């Protein structure tokens, strides 16, 4: 049984968001990393670039597959996790914390209303599985 921390928000594209003021730290959920399998490499945006809600902000290559990372928010990238360059394995081993990917300065805080809390994300996953 996966545990999704209560202090995070979640997108339906399996991306989590930790909000502090108008800054959002973004990563992929434990479920997303499990579905991917072992992650090999990652493409992330450059600092000072813009990301747009529901548009790709990067890509991950895992065993035999490439997955686009879909941004949950619109804003300006102010930090990128450079630790992932040295140890991409933390995306798999610690996805909700040290495996974070980017920090975004949020343009419109109202976009947060479309994200799910941990309970809502849990219910969404159950619906997704039932739909298979």
């Amino acid at each position, binding site marked *: 049984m996966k545990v999704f921390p209560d202090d995070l928000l979640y997108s339906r*594209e399996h991306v989590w968001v930790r909000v502090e003021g108008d800054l959002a730290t973004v990563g992929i959920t434990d479920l997303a990393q499990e*579905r*991917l*399998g*072992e992650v*090999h*490499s990652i*493409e992330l945006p450059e600092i000072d670039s813009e990301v747009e809600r*529901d548009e*790709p902000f990067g*890509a991950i*290559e*895992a*065993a*035999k*597959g*490439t*997955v*686009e990372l*879909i941004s949950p928010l619109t804003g300006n990238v102010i930090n990128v996790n450079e630790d992932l360059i040295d140890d991409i394995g933390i995306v798999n081993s610690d996805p909700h914390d040290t495996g974070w990917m980017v920090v975004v300065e949020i343009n419109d805080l109202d976009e947060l209303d479309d994200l799910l809390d941990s309970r809502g994300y849990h219910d969404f996953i159950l619906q*997704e599985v039932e*739909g*298979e």
Partner: protein
Amino acid sequence: MAIDEAIFREVQRSGGPPTVRLYGWLSPAVTIGHFQHIDREIDLDACRKGGVTVVRRPTGGKAVYHDDDLTYAVIAADNTSLFSPTILETYRVISQCLVRGLHKLGVEAILAAEGREPGKESVMESGMGTVKGSEDASCFSVPSLHELLVKGRKICGSAQMRSRGVFLQQGSLLMSFDPEKTYDVTLPHREPRARQVQALREKVTSLYDHLPRFVTREDVCKSLIEAFQTGWQVSLAEGSLTPEEETLKEHLLKTKYCDLVKEGNT
């Protein structure tokens, strides 16, 4: 590549039923994976001299030399009764159909029970003994989990991309295999050449090595389509690109899928 991605993007945008495409190449080509470094993994001079087009795939994985192969693409939403959001499970579902299609042609293909482990030498037990792989650029240098083997040798390489609940899986089923050309266009060039070519020959096989009777490319396509229909219990209808897909294909051809051998495109 542009057609595959155009269909993929349109399924993302407006949904639609699963699509299976089977196609070939007008001239020899190398496709490289989304994350591959072209300068480190492809011998561009050899491609240029040999008239080999180089195109980056939207999917991951390693380099594939396309000459006498049948390329397939499957595009579908990933949360249906047929397909799963898990990469390897989707591989399994598609590979089982390919196996069924090859069986109908009299080729005893099986799914690889173990796969390569990136960054390390991979080892696979097979009927032909132990096959060791390495970080070669060629997709066919070692099989991955759920890929197709015939008598312990890889016959089909596949790769996938996913985004917004839709997947695209592309693969190359070898009608015949040219280990010399594969060695020449992919890097690194480990020496001696003859030994490396022989190693590829021992790891890779093709349909023409195993077909009990002569079949045409159309026969292979027909067998695979029947296998997809039986395996998924669906009826596949021939179709053409929608106007939206056609427009997107043209755009992608100009902006993304140009020949990387031509100067300035890398």
